[in-house]
């Protein structure tokens, strides 16, 4: 029973839990329930990844209607891997959020908060797993609406304008995706991604298809905050409640990056996107500019959450750069970084949230002297910060290693050098904060305040992520294996598509996928 429905459960579990969490009403019940559900979703996605790694692909026809008539859910190593990261972070953030939320969100809204969190989780899982282009739009909107709500729940009024800007930009992005999907549908008559992939090649040079691709790319780029469409992200991350920022920073944009990968590699085909349309160069250029511009922006901010928000935009540059290299190793670098960056940013934002919990503000000057007052929190921040910088034995180093190796493989020596030079900015923006925490005295005005370490409920999730930062920085076998099979899978599917065009044969239904599976096994 469970195995049979493994693909659909991670979506419907939080989906059904969300209204129940609302009905439960009391903050503590909703919290416990949401955490439990998210933990279950994590276990399920663990199973799902194991199944995907051993069996290749799981296809699930919702409603029993075979694709392309019904909606298909498709799980492969790639999305199962991202899903694992999303559910893991969600669970940890939920554990963390109990106290954090008590401080930052009005008591009346607590159960709404947990409901919205579950809705967001359901939306993100749906985006990852679905194999239907329009269904993706629906889940995108579920997660987006929940996200706007979550951002606007903070007590500072600035969260409202941030959420509004996010809403307008996000809706424009979603509408662009809707236009793109519409154009594809118009030319192919189908919405199933695999079916789309097969039919798009019949109309290879069509202007309509190209426009559709462009609109989907721009729409997704807004959602993943690719420079220069990132303007919504820094205010949203800065003013949202800390638990929300920790969750969003490590999941939402990653899911959007996956959507981009999904469309490029399994729908349009890399030849079409990168060779015919020349997107590779555009993406690469934007990614490099993002790395430099936003890393620089991060060094001049005074609010630590803004610093980390700009850092996130820069890190998205690394993700996009990896996939723009158009190679198995480049894609693998992106997949690994999706996972690793979630670990780093989750830990960093949790640490910052802990500081907010005690100090009530997260300006750099408020970090002065916290190294002594909150040793565990600041140690967590330091280790995760070193990970962002890319110091060896942390996940950041692993990501950077694979990305640079991938660039060098393509003889992109300049890009490789830029990646490394770009990461130097992290030394500055993380260094400023650490220096304030450890080598500045607590201001006189604060010495009377009772600043001490936060409760274990906040520390445990934070440290789980920190330890994961180190563990996966040393034992890279799990991430490497999953990312590698994910990217190989994506490339195989893609090359199958292209072979088909070359041989001129038209494969019906899911024949391509079966072929790809044969090759992989």
């Amino acid at each position, binding site marked *: 029973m469970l195995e049979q429905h493994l693909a659909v459960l991670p979506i419907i579990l939080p989906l059904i839990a969300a209204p129940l969490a609302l009905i439960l009403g009391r903050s503590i019940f909703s919290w416990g329930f949401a955490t439990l559900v998210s933990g279950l979703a994590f276990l399920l996605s663990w199973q799902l990844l194991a199944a995907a790694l051993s069996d290749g692909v799981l296809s699930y026809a919702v409603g029993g209607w075979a694709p392309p008539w019904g909606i298909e859910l498709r799980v492969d190593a790639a999305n199962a891997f991202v899903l694992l990261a999303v559910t893991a972070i969600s669970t940890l953030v939920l554990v963390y959020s109990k106290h954090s939320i008590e401080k930052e969100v009005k008591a009346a809204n607590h159960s709404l908060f947990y409901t919205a969190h579950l809705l967001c989780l359901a939306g993100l899982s749906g985006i990852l797993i679905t194999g239907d282009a329009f269904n993706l*739009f629906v889940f995108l909107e579920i997660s987006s609406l929940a996200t706007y709500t979550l951002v606007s729940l903070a007590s500072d*009024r600035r969260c*409202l304008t941030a959420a509004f800007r996010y809403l*307008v930009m996000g*809706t424009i992005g979603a509408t662009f995706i809707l*236009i793109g999907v519409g154009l594809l549908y118009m030319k192919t008559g189908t919405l199933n991604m695999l079916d789309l992939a097969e039919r798009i090649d019949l109309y290879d040079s069509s202007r309509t298809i190209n426009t559709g691709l462009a609109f989907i790319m721009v729409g997704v780029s807004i959602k993943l905050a690719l420079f220069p469409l990132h303007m919504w992200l820094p*205010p949203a991350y800065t003013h949202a409640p800390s638990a929300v920022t920790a969750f969003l920073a490590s999941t939402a944009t990653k899911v959007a990056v996956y959507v981009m990968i999904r469309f490029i590699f399994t729908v349009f085909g890399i030849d079409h996107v990168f060779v015919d349309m020349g997107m590779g160069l555009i993406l690469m250029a934007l990614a490099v500019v993002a790395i430099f511009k936003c890393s620089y922006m991060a060094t001049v901010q005074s609010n630590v959450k*803004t610093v980390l928000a700009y850092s996130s935009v820069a890190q998205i540059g690394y993700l996009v750069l990896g996939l723009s290299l158009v190679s198995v190793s480049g894609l693998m670098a992106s997949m690994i970084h999706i996972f690793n960056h979630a670990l780093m940013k989750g830990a960093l934002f949790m640490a910052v949230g802990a500081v907010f919990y005690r100090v009530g503000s997260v300006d750099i000057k408020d970090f002065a002297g916290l190294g002594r007052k909150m040793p565990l929190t600041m140690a967590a921040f330091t280790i995760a910060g070193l990970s962002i910088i890319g110091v060896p034995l942390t996940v950041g180093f692993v990501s950077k290693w694979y990305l640079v190796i991938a660039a060098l493989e393509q003889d992109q020596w300049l890009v490789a050098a830029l990646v490394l030079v770009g990461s130097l900015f992290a030394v500055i923006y993380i260094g400023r904060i650490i220096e304030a925490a450890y080598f500045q005295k607590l201001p006189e005005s604060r010495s009377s305040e009772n600043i001490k370490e936060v409760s274990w409920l906040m520390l445990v999730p934070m440290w789980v992520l920190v330890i994961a930062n180190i563990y996966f920085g040393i034992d890279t076998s799990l991430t490497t294996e999953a990312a590698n099979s994910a990217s190989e899978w994506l490339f195989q599917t893609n090359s199958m598509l292209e072979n088909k065009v070359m041989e001129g044969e038209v494969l019906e239904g899911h024949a391509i996928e079966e072929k790809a599976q044969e090759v992989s096994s």
Partner: protein
Amino acid sequence: MSFILDYYNYWVVVFLMMAGFYIVISANNLVKKIVGLNIFQTSVFMLYISMGKVSGGTAPIVVEGVTQYSNPLPHVLILTAIVVGVATTAVGLALIVRIKRAYGTVEENEFDNKDDVI
């Protein structure tokens, strides 16, 4: 001429979309931005419905003696999309109400003077 007949519908729809899009990104008032967003989306709905139309067809409800129906799938998609649109609108308007209460204004250029909008 047949070229124009084939495409005039889409062109006008594109114009409408862009009118909505322009309102979203140029309007100063937040309510007007939401109006623009709605116009933008409604026009996209028209794009979808246009592609579902079959000349000489009827609404996709089984009627005796009719063989040519318009395509029901775009209709289904747009039903969903309309709901998504109104949901976004409601949240957006709720945000505007709160912004008005918190800042005393809903004009974009007036925030800049008030230190808050990044």
